[in-house]
């Protein structure tokens, strides 16, 4: 076992989803219906399914280290 396994990935981090990689879309979650909402840059902030205007950013996919104390 080595601590190196748990080193945070280096370099620029992208929140883009695999499916939408390259298209420039970011994935959000609708605050009302929890559906996945891919948004292009400059697109209106709006759920494509229910029309809600509150969207949440997804949690980072990066490992986060904590001390258990």
């Amino acid at each position: 076992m080595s601590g190196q396994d748990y080193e945070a990935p280096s370099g620029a981090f992208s929140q883009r989803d695999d499916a939408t990689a390259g298209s420039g879309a970011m994935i959000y979650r609708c605050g009302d219906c929890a559906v996945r909402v891919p948004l292009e840059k400059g697109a209106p902030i709006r759920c494509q399914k229910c029309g809600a205007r509150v969207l949440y950013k997804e949690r980072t996919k990066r490992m986060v280290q904590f001390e258990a104390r």
Partner: protein
Amino acid sequence: MPHKPPTQEELEKRKIVGVNFETVTDVSSTDFPGHYPGEDHAWDIERFKKGFSVEFHQNDPYEASFSLIGCDASIANAFRRIMIADVPTLAIENVFIWNNTSVIQDEVLAHRLGLIPFTGGREGLHEFLKWFEKPAEGEQPNCTDYNTVELSLDIKCEDNDDADSKETDPTKLYHHAHVYAKDIVFKPIGRQEQYFSGENIIRPVNPDILIAKLRPGQQISLTMHMHKGVGSDHAKFSPVATASYRIMPTITITQPILGRDAEKFQKCFPKGVIGLEKVTAKEAAQKGSGYRGHEGELKAVVVDPKRDTVSREVLRHEEFKDKVKLGRRRDHFIYLVESTGQWESDAIFLESVSHLKAKAKSLEQQLVNMVR
């Protein structure tokens, strides 16, 4: 004036702390050199051995109660403090969270995980596993099989399609609505396999500790590193739920307490402290015993003063005030050690003894270096 050596009765009296209606007397010990003129109270190993004894009242894996009789409060307290703060255990120290979409925050979850007591093979825990050296700033940690134990927790909550349509209990409606300590999985590495397999596997002492609650779609995915540590660093490393001692209570009935009074007297103490016995013919025949003409009546006798809480309730009653003397034996310590499961309770005490011995040895070495 020549010095008269103290009688046995006088020696016993010196050990007693007086517990009165409103005051406490003779709190400090007096068995040190120079206190009593003409008496030698220099500490001596042979004299200590003669006056010292250990008595076990209960010895279970998770709870042990025993008495140390004939030692000073400083020593008794040193053992207590070492048991709480210096006996090492293994606990979760680092949490690497890959994903946590539950409502419990990452840092709170990590804190909760750290407090879960774990157990495993004794030989592996106490002999094989060594201290983990904390890396210097910017250095990589040196995690190996002999100083780090890896655990993982991977759980996802999903709808239970077999659930009744009228069901309202989340644990039946969903799979893994509750995350328990038993969901944590041990990942043996290297030689850990030979020390921690089968019944010696590293596992939570209490499998049903609730860690988090989930709803469908939420998941927790993390790995954990356990290290050895001591209670003085963090309470999660303490091997005891608590280790404490009480000083032995003494109850001396100075005048007979009979009949209805005896029953009332008994109720002034916790159960089992005071018993009721019939006055014998022999006692009733004795002149000046106070039992004359009371043959067959019930009298109060002290059965088990150890169980007394020294509430002093008895001293509030006018009729008992002058018939009983309460006190505590200054050199009799009743310990209660509750293990969290990584050590046997009695082994924690034995470990504290060897710790104190090691501390004394290192102090001795430092003194030798000082005068050199």
